[in-house]
């Protein structure tokens, strides 16, 4: 399949038929047992559609398209949740129904709504965006995929681990034991910091649902209705962003944010110490040694450049006194064609682990 015939009219017609059949399915699904339905046919349809297209898409464009697909799902998910309730609204009190929808969203944030891991849970995964950003960033700085400590059990083992880690090391390997204990303590602190950070987002999720409630109330008061998935999604984003902006401007958030970054750095530093120890044992140069060399080299280069500059200045003065042009060109002249600025090759981890999985 080539890019030129990938999206021709026949294919789009097939698409249309596919969506039409989904519409029928969807209508049937909105029977009295809607609450127990956990399937989302449209989501399956989008996945199927993407599966058909993806092989023809180059890697670079694929990740970009996937972002658009994922966000598209997010806003249809939101619309799906509310539109099902709208259907029920014909036979029931509309006010109660949308209030219940918002309550379900809040319950989802607190983890007290069991919807078999479907619908509402995936809708709420939208609120994982900030955490997802953190995870991607962590992944790019770590030899491990994703943020490996994120889902590690923590609270239930904390006391016993604390006790074990406070026991002093003994014997010939005392220092080594001590270093591993420090590493474990750092890992525990990081995990606790991440937990605290995650909790902020749970609270934030609930606050944005409250804002959404106020917004919907405003729509009711104005006698209007929201009649498109896109409008609903845009307003949901605005509510989330507003709740977020308010929360992250507080000193408490700054403290939690700082704790997370500091804990991560402390853990990484502990790991680096152990790596250096092992490199030293293998008679390899360590990061610490390289840094000492870098510092000394930079100091030498700094002096060298300052001396060259002074020398050039002196030459100019001498030449001026003698009424001549400087004998040599300034040290700043381009000596060779400058290479195009290129980013140094760095390792980039591209695999993403979905935190919602």
């Amino acid at each position, binding site marked *: 399949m080539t890019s030129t015939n990938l999206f021709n009219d026949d294919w789009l017609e097939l698409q249309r038929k596919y969506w039409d059949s989904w519409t029928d399915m969807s209508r049937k699904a909105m029977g009295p047992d809607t609450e127990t339905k956990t399937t989302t046919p449209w989501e399956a349809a989008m996945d199927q559609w993407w599966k058909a297209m993806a092989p023809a898409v180059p890697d670079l464009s694929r990740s970009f398209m996937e972002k658009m697909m994922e966000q598209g799902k997010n806003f249809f998910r939101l619309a799906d949740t509310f539109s099902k309730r709208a259907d029920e*609204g014909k036979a029931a009190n509309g006010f109660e129904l949308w209030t219940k929808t918002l309550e379900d969203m809040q319950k989802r944030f607190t983890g007290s709504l069991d919807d078999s891991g479907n619908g509402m849970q995936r809708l709420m995964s939208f609120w994982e965006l900030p955490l997802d950003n953190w995870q991607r960033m962590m992944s790019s700085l770590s030899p491990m995929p994703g943020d490996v400590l994120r889902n590690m059990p923590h609270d239930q083992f904390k006391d016993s681990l604390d006790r074990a880690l406070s026991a002093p090391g003994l014997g010939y390997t005392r220092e080594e034991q001590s270093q591993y204990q420090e590493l474990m303590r750092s890992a525990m602190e990081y995990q606790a910091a991440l937990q605290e950070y995650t909790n902020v987002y749970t609270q934030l999720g609930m606050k944005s649902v409250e804002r959404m409630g106020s917004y919907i109330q405003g729509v009711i008061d104005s006698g209007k209705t929201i009649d498109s998935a896109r409008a609903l999604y845009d307003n949901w984003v605005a509510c989330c962003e507003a709740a977020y902006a308010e929360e992250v401007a507080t000193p408490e958030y700054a403290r939690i944010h700082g704790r997370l970054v500091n804990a991560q750095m402390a853990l990484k530093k502990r790991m680096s110490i152990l790596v250096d120890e092992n490199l030293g044992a293998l008679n390899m140069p360590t990061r610490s040694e390289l840094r000492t060399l870098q510092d000394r080299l930079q100091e030498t280069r700094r002096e060298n450049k300052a001396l060259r500059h002074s020398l050039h200045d002196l030459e100019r003065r001498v030449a001026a006194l003698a009424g001549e042009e400087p004998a040599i060109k300034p040290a700043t002249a381009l000596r060779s064609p400058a290479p195009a600025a290129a980013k140094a090759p760095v390792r980039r981890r591209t695999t993403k682990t979905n935190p919602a999985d």
Partner: protein
Amino acid sequence: MFPIDIRPDKLTQEMLDYSRKLGQGMENLLNAKSIDTGVSPKQPVYSEDKLVLYRYDRPEGAPEAQPVPLLIVYALVNRPYMTDIQEDRSTIKGLLATGQDVYLIDWGYPDQADRALTLDDYINGYIDRCVDYLRETHGVDKINLLGICQGGAFSLMYSALHPDKVRNLVTMVTPVDFKTPDNLLSAWVQNIDIDLAVDTMGNIPGELLNWTFLSLKPFSLTGQKYVNMVDLLDDPDKVKNFLRMEKWIFDSPDQAGETFRQFIKDFYQNNGFLNGGVVLGGREVNLKDITCPVLNIFALQDHLVPPDASKALKGLTSSPDYTELAFPGGHIGIYVSGKAQKEVTPAIGKWLNER
């Protein structure tokens, strides 16, 4: 009444439209191929370590170049091609059109070997040598300096330490008061142990900075904008424009560790322009030592450098010729929006030409 009236058939139609746009737009994405940035012809005239100083070619029909060259100092964060991102959105082109002889410092991509570069190395080293090169090449005592964002803070420091080499100073979206109440970045960084971060990482990875910037508006910047993008997919030019911006946003060089350490501590944590205590090469930076004309440009909807952070410059220098220009846009829009092309660059050129 239920306030949300999204019927299944309407929802289906929206989904169909969405997937149709996505599918048709894929053609444009596939055809986009490589994304060109930095469109104006330029020549490298000086290089040192990873730094390259470029001189932009005078376009046909442009007025005769002014005798005093203009040096643009960009931030270490992100890449300077933002100033010349596409044909019809280029600050560089706008400046050339006003007769400026434009030079720009490209800092390159620092790696671990550059970890020990200090703020002093950047200001009194790299920038000063570029300035000296221009002074000698053009046979002038002083040059014009234009600093962008963090590069504006660098330009302020440079102008304070070397007032004898700067004829006019232009600062764009430049933080001066780093602790205005609406400065989220500043609020967040107060509790971060910068020494620990730099000692651990050496250089500060671009990914860490990206995460910080995206965290300012996570839902809009990492979610909603891709939905908005679908609406643009049918226009090949708009697709390319979007991809150019996307490339720029995520093209984040690592930050030389020692410079980052000092910049964050001296400015974000100690607000050094206001409180003093910034020492480079054994000399303290005092903005009162700036005597040249100053044009201070800020963006009214800037969420990275709030307007008040820039406006604080007023009264801090000794310049008898201080001008402010407020642009109704954001931190990036001031370079890439159509309005900026019409308002900002001509104003800079006019201001410089008058001096």
